């Protein structure tokens, strides 16, 4: 299972369309709506792992196209930080990725999610567990 945080202005629409057009099977993806990728905190990323995700995606708008200017840039910084934290506690950092999607990038949305599913399948279920996530960034 993977959790994908999706910006409601872009990626969320693209993933919806990807499912409707049959390009994406959503049965192993939990798509979580966010108003802007800038809303996704390091803690949310770690919580997603704690709550059972084998992989986590942050789907944002392309850089330079964020309606909230810096949302996607902030999200990228947080993803990179969280990747380091994951490595420290023995979880492969490949399990956490970020991708840029515009609302009409429907096939790309399907590809990005399929890629993460492939990565997760190759790595197997996430054995490391984030259990102290509550303490992070508190």
């Amino acid at each position, binding site marked *: 299972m993977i959790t994908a945080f999706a910006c409601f202005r872009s990626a969320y629409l693209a993933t919806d369309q990807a499912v409707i057009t049959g390009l994406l099977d*959503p049965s192993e993806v*939990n798509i979580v709506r966010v108003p*802007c990728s800038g*809303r*996704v905190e390091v803690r949310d990323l770690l919580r997603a792992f704690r*709550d059972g995700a084998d992989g986590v995606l942050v789907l944002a708008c392309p850089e330079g196209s964020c309606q909230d200017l810096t949302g996607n840039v902030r999200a990228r910084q947080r993803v990179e930080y969280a990747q380091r934290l994951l490595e420290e506690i023995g979880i492969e950092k490949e399990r956490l990725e970020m991708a840029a999607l515009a609302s009409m990038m429907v096939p790309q949305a399907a590809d990005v999610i399929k890629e993460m599913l492939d990565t997760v399948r190759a790595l197997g279920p996430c054995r490391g567990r984030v259990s102290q996530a509550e303490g992070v960034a*508190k």
Partner: protein
Amino acid sequence: MNENLKIGVFLCKCGGALAKRIDFQKLLTQVNTFPGVSYSQVDSALCLAEGRVSIGRAIKEQGLNRVVIAGCSPSFHEETFMEALRDFGFDPQLMAMAALRERCFGEEATQRAAREVLAAVRKAALLVPLPEKAVSVEPAVAIIGGGLTGIEAALTAAQLGLRVTLIEKEKELGRRGSELYPEVLTKKLQELVQQPRITVSTGTELLAIKGQAGHFAISVKKGGQTSIVNAGAIIIASGVEPQTPPYFSPPQVIGLWQLPRILATSSEKFRRVGFLVDLAQESRLASHMAVEGALACKKNWASEAYILCRNVKVDGREWEGLYRQARDQGVIFFKFRDNPSVKLCGVQVEIVVNDIYLGGQPVSLACDLLVVEQELAVGPSIREIAREAGLTISPEGWLQDANVHLYPVLSNRPGIFYAGLCRWEQELEESLADARQAAESAASLLSGGKTWVLSGKVAIEAEKCALCLTCIRSCPHRAISIDPIRRAPYVDDLSCQGCGICAAECPGKALQLNGFTDAQMAVQLQLGEGWK
């Protein structure tokens, strides 16, 4: 959890399409066991009038205080349901949606549906009402820049009932317009003097933009005196400054924007006129101006005209016809890949160009007048003021519109609009369209002196705030300030766009974005039960 919680779950078969995938009887039984659910029903199409009415009826009869709609994705019909709930007098912020249509497939569809509904029910339980409140706004607009674009914006805004202050730094309105489009300017100026709602303030320098949408305070300086102009919205129509062109050496080599004046005033007739554009990059406006200029030279001086460019861009109304006309009248076009060489030889200019269609054979042209493109740049002072007001400047130095296709005249700050050349190179007709759109956007925000906004999008816990100012620095819309009495952040309802960046950045967790609080996000992440 709130003890009086009464969640109503409305399952939708999406016109029957979902009934093939999901066992609704089973789902309904499961849904009724979810915490807080006091009512549930299945409908064939909730988005239709009948379905919407049934939601309203259930809310009333069952006394529901939260609504979960499970059917299509919120990207599809969220607005429809919000509108319907508003009509029933129910706070649309107390609704959560579960996307069954976009999530539930295959053998496990029913199970997945139950999980999606459960997540929505849990979220609904955590939702708080966000009343819409009327905010008073100043039904006045300040327009920065008294060019043709600014004048058009002023006229439109005044017609729509707003008070207008037109701020121009020069002594006269429409300096460039008087050179390029004298008839249009004269006509607009006549309309302007007849409009009592417009105050024209020339010779006035803009100093700073303060305040929020609905209540801006613009400080200006006129004749050494500083004063404040109050306005609910600002339209920036400051235009651009054409820069000194390459090879500039009058009278033989001039800039593209200087040609109209030369055409009008020069006693000399230039027999051979060259136009050199696309040196730095391809430009549609330069293409258009060169073609227009070449035609004017032919008409005024019976010149021979050459246009040297990378590409003739004709993506504007009637531009294609203009290009055709130029070809018919004998304007010669050269297309180059490498910039041509330009040399001044006495009173003539010698240009050597490699046309891509002439097989590498350089062509040498001797011109009496060479008209060269000019780079356009937003003036440094307006750029600095914009930057200080938290507006974004594009990498190329323009005032960045919110979305070039969808919201071309909106800035990143509500209440501040752009029109004309300050946001992108465009010709007069396009700038005027911008001006009208900006004025209408301002009027829709300000007319009636009040506007409705969601209050409390960001929940603030003052006792957690350490006044570190992270939220103020991170807010991309400049919506946050410090409330000195509460010693905590204050979020302006009109300016806040609900992105949640402040909530994510706050190290003390003093801010929470309603609808996407930590708790509301957390319930969406649980993958344990119900997944398998």
